[in-house]
């Protein structure tokens, strides 16, 4: 099935009959929309001349000061507003970094799997992505060390490591405290730049946020932040926190792209942070997503066939599911659409063709009842697919993986077996070296 066929199937997702566990849309209806609406109205009346005018290419100064306070919640206390560049969502920040750092053929390191939007940006920059294994504790330091050593042996160096350390998209796992130090030690040893993409860090369910990588190393880590998950994605406000030399290049690149980030959106965020109980609202989001995470995990445990495994996220939006050997989440998608349930096939989260056995479920948008119904439908789809496979390929026939025979099978970060109800996750820690052309 081609990318255009997948897009075609997604056209059905917008219909209310379909339970979409596909898109990562924040639950913006949980916002106090009346209050936000009044706030925006008053803001335009009071500051319309500024809000509707061009602004600074680096971003509104007041907002950049407030961003420092937001980052302080994750331990970043030594940044200055001068290091912050406001962007049109953190996606523009990623694009700016790719423009500043990447030349065609450059190597970058990214988790296995990795955020599809980042992979698209790196692909547009014609970079070569080398995936590094992760498990239930996030990026595996030994795998990173092997990748770095492999590159060094070839006389090459990665331009940077791209990582989503908290509540990973799509894997759902979080980089553990000890590994944060290990990863940064490796970055020092190999003179490696780290791009820390952290849109979900404040949305943890079970513990306070871990100190950001940027909080531990200000010289080597460039930080991407976003208000899309803590406030509203429709405003498209994110930021990059980078050392001065990089900051200047980012501002120039951003001015070339968009002149300045939207003044109205920036003022809305600034006003929201100043005048509304924004962190209380973050706690509301946490509770909401926590309930939905629980509904997802409970339904998976109750309904999924044996040999289906999944991760157990402690925050964020996503559960990463691994199907039994031989099943292909992309090939299964028409059956899922027919059953009126949608997910994202795993193959999109790899730059090298891995991921056939994986799929991403998002629990952020549907309510718990819809989530349970969606998982029930998905379980039926998997059962039917298993039955078909048994008919044509036998239960352990190697021919089932014909389409992926030339690609390495994706590892499964932090899998939880369907049979270990509430049990401890077990990870895989294969550490292949980089696969360069």
């Amino acid at each position, binding site marked *: 099935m081609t990318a255009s*066929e997948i897009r*075609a199937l997604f*056209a059905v997702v917008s219909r209310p009959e379909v339970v979409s566990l596909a898109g990562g849309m924040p639950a913006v209806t949980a916002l106090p929309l009346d209050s936000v609406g009044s706030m925006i109205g008053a803001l335009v009346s009071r500051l319309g001349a500024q809000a509707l005018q061009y602004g600074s290419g680096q971003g509104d100064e007041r907002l950049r000061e407030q961003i420092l306070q937001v980052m302080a919640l994750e331990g970043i206390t030594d940044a200055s507003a001068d290091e912050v560049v406001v962007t049109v969502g953190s996606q523009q920040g990623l694009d700016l970094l790719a423009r500043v750092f990447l030349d065609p053929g450059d190597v970058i390191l990214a988790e296995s799997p990795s955020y599809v939007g980042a992979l698209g940006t790196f692909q547009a920059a014609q970079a070569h992505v080398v995936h590094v294994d992760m498990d239930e504790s996030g990026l595996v330091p030994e795998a990173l060390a092997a990748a770095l050593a492999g590159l060094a042996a070839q006389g090459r160096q990665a331009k940077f490591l791209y990582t989503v350390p908290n509540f990973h998209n799509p894997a759902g796992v979080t980089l553990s405290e000890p590994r944060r130090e290990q990863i940064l030690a490796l970055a020092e040893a190999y003179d490696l730049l780290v791009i820390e993409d952290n849109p979900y860090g404040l949305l943890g369910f079970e513990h306070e946020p871990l100190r950001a990588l940027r909080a531990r190393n200000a010289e080597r880590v460039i930080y991407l932040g976003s208000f899309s998950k803590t406030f509203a994605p429709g405003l498209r406000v994110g930021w990059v926190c980078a050392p001065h030399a990089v900051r200047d290049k980012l501002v120039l690149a951003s001015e070339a792209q968009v002149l300045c980030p939207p003044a109205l959106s920036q003022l809305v965020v600034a006003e929201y942070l100043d005048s509304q109980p924004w962190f209380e609202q973050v706690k509301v989001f946490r509770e909401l997503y926590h309930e939905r995470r629980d509904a997802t995990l409970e339904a998976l445990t109750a309904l999924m066939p044996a040999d289906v495994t999944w991760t157990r996220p402690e925050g964020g939006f996503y559960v990463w599911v691994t199907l039994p050997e031989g099943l292909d989440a992309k090939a299964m998608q028409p059956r899922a659409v027919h059953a009126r349930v949608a997910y994202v096939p795993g193959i999109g989260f790899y730059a090298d063709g891995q991921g056939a056995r994986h799929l991403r479920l998002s629990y952020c948008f549907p309510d718990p009842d819809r989530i349970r119904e969606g998982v029930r439908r998905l379980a039926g789809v998997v059962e039917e*697919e298993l039955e*078909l496979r048994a*008919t*044509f390929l036998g239960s352990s026939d190697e*021919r*089932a993986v*014909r389409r992926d025979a030339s690609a390495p099978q994706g590892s499964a970060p932090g899998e939880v077996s369907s049979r270990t109800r509430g049990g401890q996750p077990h990870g895989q820690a294969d550490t292949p070296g980089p696969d360069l052309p």
Partner: protein
Amino acid sequence: MSQGAPRAVVLSGGLAFEREVSLRSGRRVVEALRHAGVETSVADADANLLSTLAADPADALFIALHGAAGEDGSLRRVLELAGIPYVGTPADRCRIAWDKPSAKAAVRATGHLTPDWVALPHSTFRELGAGAILDLMVARLGLPLLIKPAQGGSALGVERIGAAPDLPSAMVSCFAYGDTVLIERFIAGVEVAVSVLDAADGPQALPAVEIVPASGVFDYAARYTAGMTAYHTPARLEAEVSARVGQLAVEVHRALGLRDLSRTDAIVDADGGVHFLEVNVSPGMTETSLLPMSVVAAGLDLGRTLRGMVAAAASRGTIVTTV
């Protein structure tokens, strides 16, 4: 029918795999009809459809739905029950055209060529053993084979298989689209599509479109991505072959009892034999679709042509059907 210009509702969207194509077809039809002076609105095939049509009746519906409900006759049957005039083939005739094995059998019965085929549900493979049946198919039909869902369009789920070991996996993928798979002998040749429109003196074939996909396979991406397929209209066929291609399409239209418009897909082999592949009662109407190309190649205006169909449907008046 109301006085003056007719009013039309274009149905597009739906819940089939081909929703995206249908939405694109719908937009094109709406634009063409409006350009031709037809007051046109658009509706999705959802739970609001009947109440919407009852509250604001149109002179006729144009069905730009592709895939199950739009082509299998089910939605048309509901429209007939509601007495709503529509452009296109009646419900009971759609069922044969929609089901590829049924259509092939009906066309073969008229004496035309169609590639040899077998169509079987999953249950048969499960009960009798897939390996033996697949071996039998390869022995009887040879290789390469085309695997396609027995129902459905836009080449979704279609795969060409050149080696027997690839067959089981292809079957698994194809069954994701439906309960029955059509396995067809592959015929090499020139792929053509012939659109047929009903005229005052009967169905008329428009110039055939020759399809040359860059990848060699006219799959979903090749169909709906501009630049991925070269089209030659009229097809680069000898006049005599071209005439037989048109004749096939008209006879399919007649034999299957189709109405207003249809599109027949066929292959012309190296010896000039014309093989029927399938027929479509709700042809694509997108920017890269074949029927609009044929209309233009015939020197017709798409908007006026569609307006004529809407007027014809409206003139048939409220449908009276038995239940």
